[in-house]
Structure formats: C-alpha cells, structure tokens
C-alpha cells in the first residue's frame, strides 16, 4: 500500500522502532475525519455490514471514544 511520505521519524538515535505511516494513521483520518455529508453510508467488511446508519450519526472515532 502506498502511503504519504513520512516527513519525519525520530532521528535522535533513541528510537527503538522507527515506525512509518501505518494503516492506523490512514484510518484515523479517512474513516473518522472529513466532511460528514448527509446521506446513507454503509461500511462493510468481509460482506458483513458493520455500520448501517444515517451518516449524521456515523462512526465514532477511536480517538473520540478514548477521550471519554
């Protein structure tokens, strides 16, 4: 999977695991950011509907859940 270039990954020499862009970075933005249009959205994985709601409700970002 191609991903945006990494601008920066710790160069201090102390990094034990220099981690590039991960799918999590992508998911954080693409699935939980962006303009929420009013419409019908279904996200399905392996043909099983995970979410089937009016988009106004939509997926709660993992980050937002963690803030609670």
């Amino acid at each position, binding site marked *: *999977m*191609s*991903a*945006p270039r*990494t*601008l*920066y*990954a*710790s*160069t*201090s020499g*102390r*990094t*034990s695991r220099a*981690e590039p*862009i991960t*799918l999590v*970075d*992508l*998911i*954080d*933005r*693409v*699935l*939980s*950011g*962006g*303009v*929420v*249009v*009013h*419409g*019908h*959205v*279904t*996200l*399905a*994985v392996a043909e099983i*509907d995970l979410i089937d709601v009016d*988009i106004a409700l*939509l997926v709660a970002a*993992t*980050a*937002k859940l*963690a*803030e609670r």
Partner: protein
Amino acid sequence: MSLLVYGIVEATSGEPRGVGLDGRSLHAVAEGPLAAVVSNHLGDRVEPTPDALSAYEQTVRRLMERGAVLPARFGSVLEDASAVLELLRRRRKDLVARLQRVRGAVEIGLRASWRDGPPTPLEARSQSGTSYLRDRLELRQSARRVATELEPLGALARSSRRAIVPRPDLPVLDSYLVDSGRVSEFVALVEQLDDRLDEVELVCTGPWPPYSFADGAPV
C-alpha cells in the same frame, strides 16, 4: 447510479483530473462557489479495504495539490447529483468558511508514543476495578504532562486537534493545520522536542489533506 463524494473544492478549481476508486473517472458537481468531486458508484456502500482506503486518500491528496479541499469522510455515497447540490446549498456558508480556513495549509499528524512502554501498564484482568481505574487515571496524567511539553507546536499551527491516550501506547495523538510554508519549521520544532523528551518518541506524518479540520468543531 449513485455518487461517491471525495471532497469539496472551490468551483473555480475546474474539472478534476484523474480517477477515483475502481478507476472510475472523477467529475465535479458545482453549486455556487462550491463543487463536490465525485465518481459514479454502484450501490450505496464502499468496502473499507486497505486498497480502497489508500486509493481514496491518494485521490483526495491529488485534489489538495490543485487547491483547497475539504475531504469527505470515506464512504460518503449520495443517491444522485441533486442530493449533492442539496448538500452544497444547505451547508454553503459553513463549507465556504472552512475552505477559506484550510486554504494554503496542510494537516500534519503527530504521534507521541512511550519509548519504554506505558509508565502505568493497564492490565484489567489481573487487578481490582479500583486499581485499574487508578492506573488509568495515572496514565492520563502522565499523558497530560507530555501534552504540556508539546504546547509550543500550537504556536506554529493555524489550528489543532488532540486526543489524549487514544491507545495505551499512545499518550498523545495530535493533528495540526499548518501553513504549507511553515511545515519545515514545524518539523524542526518536533525534532527539537523529540530530542528533549526522554519519555516519548515523536513521529510526524503527512502532509495530509485536512481531514481533521473538515468538519466538527470550528477551525
């Protein structure tokens, strides 16, 4: 045929180039000062496979390279062009203002992760409820101390979003809206902070289209 929405741009951006998911060509649906970039789509769902997410992100990134864009959330399918026009009419004021605020800026992600694991490991199974909650509180307090150290970054950004302890190994997950011309300066400051902070490792990602600033709280 329904329409998959990739993002909102200024109507003056002209017809988008390139393709979206499944190699489908992009076109613009314009209303007043705004245009939605869409592709034809069969059905009302989009499977969020890694390839689809990546293709979506690349499409939105290409839009950003041509001008200001507000990315749509992945999976935004509207039934037809009139539904898109209705969206652009209904939210015109807000979308125009947001486009104005993100113009000339990019989103930079910042992950702070514990260098040696969380200072307070959370192991719910082996503890009482009380000690689990106490550990969780301590973890949040440690994360807030890290967040305080990152405050100088805010001065280099137009706006920012923050999640505290989104995962136990991540004390802070930030997104910053940074002027394109200040990205190098921003990254240099992250580098300085990374050198200074012993507890955490900082990693920037990006530049991203402004996903975290396209909706929700005002930018």
